[in-house]
């Protein structure tokens, strides 16, 4: 069964450093997402991406964040200057091009645990 993969599984970085989290969505999916989950809290939407541009972003997704699909398979989330409060699990998700009910049928990766010290 195809699945979303994410690397690394755990990233430790110092405050102020740049990090890039990588995702390989399911191959025939065209809509991509990043979510995050701070320990013990809800899963929060960060950004959606389609046709090589951002479709929607949340208030969390400020100028320190960026996303890119550098090639036909990878989808990355960059945090330019990490803060302590960026420590969280970051989940990538993807879905097919179908509309309607498939909007809510997203496939999530296993996550990258980001620890900012």
């Amino acid at each position, binding site marked *: 069964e195809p699945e*979303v993969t994410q690397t690394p599984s755990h990233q430790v970085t110092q405050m102020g450093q740049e990090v890039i989290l990588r995702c390989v969505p399911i191959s025939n999916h065209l*809509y991509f*997402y990043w*979510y995050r989950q701070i320990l013990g809290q*809800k*899963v*929060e*939407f960060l950004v*959606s991406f389609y046709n090589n541009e951002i*479709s*929607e972003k*949340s208030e969390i997704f400020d100028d320190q964040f960026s996303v890119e699909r550098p090639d036909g398979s990878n989808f990355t989330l960059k945090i330019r200057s990490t803060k302590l409060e960026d420590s969280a*699990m970051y*989940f990538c*998700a993807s*879905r097919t091009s179908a*509309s*309607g*009910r*498939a*909007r*809510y*049928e*997203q*496939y*999530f*990766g*296993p*996550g990258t*645990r980001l620890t900012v010290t």
Partner: protein
Amino acid sequence: LAKTTQPISMDSYEGQEVNITCSHNNIATNDYITWYQQFPSQGPRFIIQGYKTKVTNEVASLFIPADRKSSTLSLPRVSLSDTAVYYCLVGGLNRDDKIIFGKGTRLHILP
């Protein structure tokens, strides 16, 4: 976005059938009902989706009454590995495609 209400937590025993009910009084005509499951330290996983009546797959059943103001996720014969958080979501057509997760229902299966 239709607001959903579900129990914060539930306990059950191995081998039992577990039913988690979600209320969504202001569901729109074009909204679907979707349930996700999240194991500790893992990403959410799509379980089941329905519009009305009953949907069944290899994981669960979803019961939706005619007025669609609530739905019930049914897990048959649960095991310890079904311990997870279960999220009820309402939306889909003509909505933003981001998922807004609530707190979900924390299901704890006891031996």
